[in-house]
């Protein structure tokens, strides 16, 4: 199964390299979103908590602009039926999940680098805590947005519906990650941030389990 999902991931990866649709649109979206924020700030310096919040705002909307592609592209090209024939639902979901995970990691790395270069108050005191938040937050974001993307693709690829459906699902993750990012700015120790970290880990595990269990129902119709 692992080999099969890796093959599926490789297929997505190659078709992405051929068109570079997701990479180009995500990169442009990041630049546009950050420059809009910079223009609206102007010469003022914004507080730490606002910087941390805006960081996750950009991450959320960038994810919403690009991650639906994974399943929508299959529906557009009409290759869903072939996939249904050759692979089990679990394989399909893990292949798409690996692709989205790598996409989310690349995109958020770029956002984090741009933020630390462009925003004065984006200074991380506890780097390990920030790194852990970043990794766990990215996993949660990728899992939740992949399963919602599958629903959206079956609902007829309604672009505007994607953020509407994802936001309530992602809200607990984003609120906790904003809190953890602020902790890492303040240099809070791991012991004090334990409870929030446990929430994010719990969210990731619950979402992963629920997605794998429910994907069968979305995929087979």
């Amino acid at each position, binding site marked *: 199964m692992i080999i099969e999902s890796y093959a599926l991931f490789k297929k997505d990866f190659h078709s992405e390299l051929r068109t570079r649709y997701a990479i180009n649109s995500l990169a442009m979206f990041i630049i546009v979103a950050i420059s809009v924020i910079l223009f609206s700030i102007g010469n003022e310096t914004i507080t730490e908590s606002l910087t941390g919040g805006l960081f996750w705002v950009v991450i959320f909307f960038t994810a919403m602009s690009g991650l639906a592609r994974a399943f929508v592209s299959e529906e557009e090209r009409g290759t869903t039926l072939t996939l249904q024939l050759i692979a089990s639902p679990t394989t399909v979901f893990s292949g798409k999940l690996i692709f989205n995970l790598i996409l989310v990691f690349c995109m958020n790395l770029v956002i984090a680098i741009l933020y630390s270069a462009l925003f004065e108050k984006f200074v991380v005191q506890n780097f390990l805590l920030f790194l852990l938040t970043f990794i766990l937050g990215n996993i949660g974001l990728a899992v939740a947005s992949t399963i919602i993307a599958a629903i959206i693709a079956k*609902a007829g690829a309604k672009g505007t519906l994607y953020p509407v*459906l994802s*936001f309530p*699902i992602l809200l607990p993750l984003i609120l906790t990650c904003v809190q953890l990012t602020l902790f890492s700015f303040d240099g809070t120790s791991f012991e004090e941030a334990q409870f929030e970290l446990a929430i994010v880990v719990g969210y990731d595990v619950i979402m992963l389990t629920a997605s794998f269990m429910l994907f069968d129902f*979305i995929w087979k119709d």
Partner: protein
Amino acid sequence: MIWKIFLFLLLAFVSIAGIAFPIVEKPSAWYEFPFIPGLEENAKIIFFHVPTAWLTVIAFLMSTIFSFRYLKNKNLDEDAKAHSAAQLGMIFCILATVTGAVWAKFAWGQFWSWDPRQTSIFAILLIYGALFALRSSIESEDKRATLSAVYSLIAFVTVPFFIFIMPRIMKGLHPGSADDSNAGPVVDFQMNSNMQLIFFLSLIGFTILYFWMWRVGYRSIIIKDKIEKQLMIPTSGQGG
């Protein structure tokens, strides 16, 4: 029929008693409510705010249970039940948000302050809204039922985060929050017996009302579907 009259009388009594009974320092007559520090004259809205919030949760739970049952046996009647519960949940969710905001204005000073409870009811409102947006975007009946059932199950697994965990990490004003020192008048029931009686009568009355509305709701959805199918068969027969 008898129980409908009984329900009408019960809810009429609860509304009149909840609004009209006076709050005094030392209650002596059976119709007088005690003065609870921290709640004061605002205490009366408890008879309407708590039942609506309770029914929001019940409706959400029932919608999830029937969604789960739909995924198990693929019976469209289960989907009608889940949809009807979600519709009522949306109505009671709006009512709970509005009564809560009115109460917050007089107890905490402003209508909305992003208290953890307010955040969670806002998230539930968003989930209901997203569910209806998803339903209205899909034409095919089976697909609509399956996808909305899956979505409501995914949304359901995030609800514990809002209800149990958010109030623990965010500072809150609502009774039951992390930094609530006196545990709140709602939690340890400083009400006297007549106030408790009307409170529980209100809960029972609203719950019966909910189940009645839910039954009417899902039956009308099922009948509407049946009529539409009956109307469709002769026209397609003539056409073919």
